[in-house]
């Protein structure tokens, strides 16, 4: 058991070191800082509605950055190993493909959540500077659901990198996930307006595609509506876990059969 933890620990450390030392990620974090700080601190004419608008925009940016980082990390977890041929010495070690997949995934999630925690810390600082409530149950719920989404996005990107080229997978997910985020809840409305074979297809897509909007608590946070019912909260976490496990299971099946 100790050996399993050491293997997984080594893979997690590698992902964190990669995130820390890769210049593009560092540049993204700096860019996020540059964009988020003015947005969070802006007080346009002291109008509270406008302040909320800027708050919401800042949170939307956090969502965008976190999606980009999660997909970038998840998509690269194995493609970088294949490209640099380091997958060969790695798989020649006494490590199973399942352990490798789990370790790389957890490493990716820890790296992605580190970036997310940084963004939320920034949000809390700006809230505190404005004299607002900088720590609340609603914020904790928002962070946990956002983290669940990030973990799910890493799993989806990892799985897609086995099904197609990494860039194709990332592009599809970078379109699909934001589309679901903005329009997912409107799909039944759209299905009602179409006829013929398209209608069941839209409904099937509605039930099968991951509903990213479930994880979004920006409105509650910005308007001070408070957290959601704990049962609903746990149900959404379970929903995210279901999709995450399904994506990892599919990735494992493909990786196990992959010709090297």
């Amino acid at each position, binding site marked *: 058991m*100790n*050996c*399993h933890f*050491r*293997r997984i*620990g*080594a*893979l997690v*450390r*590698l992902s964190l*070191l*990669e995130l820390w*030392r*890769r210049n593009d990620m560092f540049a993204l974090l700096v860019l996020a800082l540059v964009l988020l700080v003015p947005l969070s601190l802006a007080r346009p004419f002291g109008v509270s509605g406008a302040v909320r608008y800027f708050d919401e925009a800042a949170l939307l940016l956090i969502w965008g950055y976190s999606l980009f980082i999660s997909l970038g990390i998840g998509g690269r977890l194995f493609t970088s190993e294949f490209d*640099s*041929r*380091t997958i*060969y*010495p*790695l*798989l*020649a*070690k*006494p*490590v*199973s493909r399942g*352990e490798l997949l789990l370790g790389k995934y957890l490493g990716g999630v820890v790296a992605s959540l580190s970036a997310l925690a940084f963004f939320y810390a920034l949000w809390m600082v700006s809230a505190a500077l404005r004299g607002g409530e900088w720590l609340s149950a609603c914020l904790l719920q928002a962070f946990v659901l956002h983290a669940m989404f990030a973990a799910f996005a890493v799993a989806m990107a990892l799985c897609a990198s086995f099904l197609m080229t990494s860039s194709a997978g990332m592009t599809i997910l970078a379109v699909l996930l934001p589309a679901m985020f903005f329009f997912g809840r409107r799909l039944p409305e759209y299905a009602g307006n179409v006829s013929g074979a398209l209608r069941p297809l839209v409904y099937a897509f509605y039930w099968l595609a991951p509903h990213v909007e479930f994880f979004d608590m920006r409105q509650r946070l910005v308007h001070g509506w408070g957290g959601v019912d704990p049962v609903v909260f746990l149900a959404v976490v379970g929903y995210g876990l279901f999709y995450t496990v399904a994506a990892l299971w599919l990735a494992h099946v493909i990786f196990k059969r992959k*010709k*090297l």
Partner: protein
Amino acid sequence: MSERVFELDGVSRSFGQVKAVDNLTLSLGKGEVTGFLGTNGAGKTTTIKMLIGLIRPTSGTVRLFGGDPSESCTRARIGYMPEMAYYYPYLNVRELLAFYGGICGMDKQTVKTRTDELLEEVELAEAAKRPLKTYSKGMLQRAGIAQALLNDPDLLILDEPFTGLDPLARIHFRELLKRLRGRGKSIFFSSHELGETELLCDNVAIMKNGHCIYHGAASAIAGDGGANLERLFLEVLEKGGVR
């Protein structure tokens, strides 16, 4: 008969219609050094991949220390260096070895001790703090051999270890392999460098179109004439077998 480190028995491997390895029977004894020769596409890398459990044979059996190489615990006794890997460029060699040590399930203290020994052995101690992206090809090969030796393996499998090395790096690498042979390690390496093979190996195996057309002592094919391996290699390839 000495203990068999690995045994390939009637192994074949196809990729679609292409038969990369065809009915190969080959084994390596404890402490033996065997050079694995053949032209490009002869089936050397496919054989090595089957040996370390990366791919399964279409037919036949592969035994590594008596076990199945696709089982992770069987691979605990081997060290493998692929043909030119570009190790994580953002790590230094100490971090690289700490990572692979963790993957092997080794504890921190053992990894540290082994790292110190290996960095001296492969002459990378002075460059230990430099990121791997600043390393030359020869230095990367030495980092590669260090990761392969980290768990003190009984069998070392090297895929084209001399590729891209300058003459001085080649001499250093050859001396390193000789020292390992002196310590009783079994070594199996594929190569196009016939001179190096001749200087290092007890045995050679020559592949052509997926078949092993010769396996035995290098001296046996050299015969009384004392001809070099290069001429004999060409002769064996042309005839498709031994004289």
